[in-house]
């Protein structure tokens, strides 16, 4: 699965994207965040405040309870601040 990070999430993790094999036990966006946090302190730092983490599956906004199902691209980012 392709995982993308933007803004301060990207800076804290230290990369803008990566391709990862996700274990079968990871079913939802929230599961994926918990699993990513086991990958190192930089991930823990990025996901420390989960309420401020927004997510998108296949380029559409989703909440953390959403099933990953057919996701081939998932992104994590702070609340948007354009305009």
């Amino acid at each position, binding site marked *: 699965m392709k995982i*993308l990070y*933007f*803004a*301060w999430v990207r800076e804290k993790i230290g990369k803008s994207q990566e391709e990862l094999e996700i274990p079968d036990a990871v079913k939802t966006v929230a599961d994926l965040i918990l699993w990513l946090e086991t990958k190192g302190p930089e991930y823990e730092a990025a996901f420390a405040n989960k309420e401020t983490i927004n997510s*998108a599956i296949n*380029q*559409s*906004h989703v909440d953390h309870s959403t099933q990953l199902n057919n996701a081939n691209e998932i*992104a994590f*980012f*702070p*609340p*948007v*601040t*354009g*305009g």
Partner: protein
Amino acid sequence: MTIRIQTEDFDITKEINLLKEERKKSGQQDVGAIVTFTGTVRDMAGKTPINSMSLEHYPGMTEKELTDIAEEANKRWPLLGTTIIHRIGDLEPGDNIVLVVTLSSHRHAAFEAADFLMDFLKSKAPFWKKEQPLEGEANWVDARDSDKQALSRWEK
């Protein structure tokens, strides 16, 4: 419907004329109202003087979100033309950030649609601003609750 993400500046008059010409080509001269909104970079973030700003976005999703927002506006109001242009990259105080243009036969539809487009753009389109103060470290701009609350005005 025109959606563009670009580093370069935009020319408001040129964008208006493009929309008018497009409508004229369809054989109609029914445009009676043109509304534009331009967002620009402030030189202060609260009490902190700002030197510059950089804008990051999520290529692909940004265009998709803006297209969805524009399509929704076209369902709600009888628009005769819609343009959304958002800049990315490095910007300085006074620079243009975003342009919304709406054409309609009457002003209310054009005003309301432009207002709607900006409210949805601000809370849905994946852009992030980072401000560089005159002194000290650059920091990511926090989202405002007021922008989220603005959306509730448009609930059907």
